[in-house]
């Protein structure tokens, strides 16, 4: 018989604080989670990179870099996407879309989501 671990809720941030800062990374009783507020959406991702286990949420938030193409399919060089934002793992540079958690070059590689909700202005995760 296998034991099922009971999930527990943790209040990890105030929504207004998260909105202002866009990203807060917490250790909640030993589980590390990155909280994000972007494009009016709240996300919570495990702070463990699927590549090598690095602290992915403790890296930078950067606009997604795109390849610009100009007239006659010439290269316009690299450019920043006007709205898409990526989380960048500080260990090796793996990047993940902040809203989908997916790697831009391989959709099979992604962050593990953590159940999150907002109640009465508090950001609550279930782990």
């Amino acid at each position: 018989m296998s034991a099922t671990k009971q999930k527990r809720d943790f209040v990890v941030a105030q929504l207004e604080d998260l909105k202002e800062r866009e990203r807060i990374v917490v250790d909640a009783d030993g589980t590390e989670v990155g909280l994000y507020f972007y494009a009016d959406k709240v996300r919570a991702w495990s702070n463990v990179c699927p590549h090598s286990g690095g602290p992915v949420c403790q890296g930078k938030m950067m606009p997604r870099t795109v390849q610009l193409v100009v007239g006659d399919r010439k290269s316009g060089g690299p450019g920043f996407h006007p709205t898409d934002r990526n989380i960048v793992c500080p260990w090796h540079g793996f990047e993940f879309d902040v809203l989908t958690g997916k790697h831009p070059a391989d959709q099979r590689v992604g962050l593990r989501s953590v159940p999150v909700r907002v109640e009465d202005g508090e950001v609550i995760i279930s782990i």
Partner: protein
Amino acid sequence: MSQMTGLKSDEGLVRELAEISGRTDTRDVLAHATKQAKEKFDDYFIVDIDAHVSEDQFWGEVLELIDNDVWKQIGMDQFDKFAGNNALLNISPGLSHQSVGGRIGHQGRKEPVEGTEGHPFVTAAKRGMDAMGLDYQVVFPSAMLLLGMHPQEEIEVVLGRAFNRWLTEVILPKNPRLKGMLYLPYNTPEVCEELVEKYADHPGIIGYTVCSTRNNPVHSDVYTRLYSLIEESGKPLAFHSGYHWGDPSFAQLNRFLSMHALSFTHYNQIHVTNWIINAMPERFPKIKMIWVESGLAWIPFLMQRLDHEVLMRPSEAPGLTKLPSEYMKEMYYSTQPMERNNMELLEATMKAFNAETQLLYSSDWPHWDWDSPSTITDLPFLSEQAKRNILGLNAARVFNLPTDRMKPSAEQVLQERPGIS
């Protein structure tokens, strides 16, 4: 550690973790590696045969040890004025894209060591070793990886001599877990001979390194006395690969990743090819050859290519008594940066060169494409013994290191600093 702001509950169980940057304490950057050590490999004996620790921050100390008065004066003048940590070196700062514009936050480290005692390099190295669960670490100068392409051979000589002094006099005596491989200024063979004779018996020097990024044919007769001295010393000879965007072939590549992917394998492929086709393993059979920082995928490629050609043209490789791949199975290779997106290919690669006995773990810490020991323990196809061999026991055999535990427990490391920024 930051205090949570405005929480109504759970304050005692929730703490905030800060963004990682080049100024973050190594123990915080590597806290997840320490947790991996606790879960997976705390009882392993681990030797990291290639790490760098960012010695360039102490470049002024190296310059002070230059034994030529004029080059020392010029070097110190450059150091104090426009060149700083690049004084006398031939690297191109504008082409240093390693951190991808700061995205890889730990690259380009400047360890916070305020309030600690001892040499800051040694402090940073100890933090890294403890955090990754390493018993020994071989440190090597990243600032000098391109010196083989320096237009002034005498600069390579004076910097090589100075660095070896700094390593053996300033760094290695401070921590017995730190080991060094002597820098050989390979463009000047007679100085390499002099240095091997001088340092062969130094307890902290466990081998010799040639920076692979250069155009010297390794089979040249100018090196035979050097190889004899190395063979007699019983210590291995490593070729540490690197990049060089100035190479005409690589100048076609417009992105750092393209050039980096190809050049790190390119130089070691050339040197292995020359070493084998000119029958150097037959002429110097006791030299233990190590090929560093080219990853692994190139090894079965080169084995197949050289076997294919030698079978058709044996008269061009008349000194060989067996196929090139057989010689390559007798050489040693370092793991990093280990390609591991396709487990079937990686397993076949490791079988091709008998990784269980020939592969040596290397972290390359703190460079951007470093590998933690978990890159080996997580491999699903390796036996427990193979993992232990690759992570440390093979290195103990090659470098003649005792296998007594040298590191603190991962639990102790986490207790002392539980990954808080």
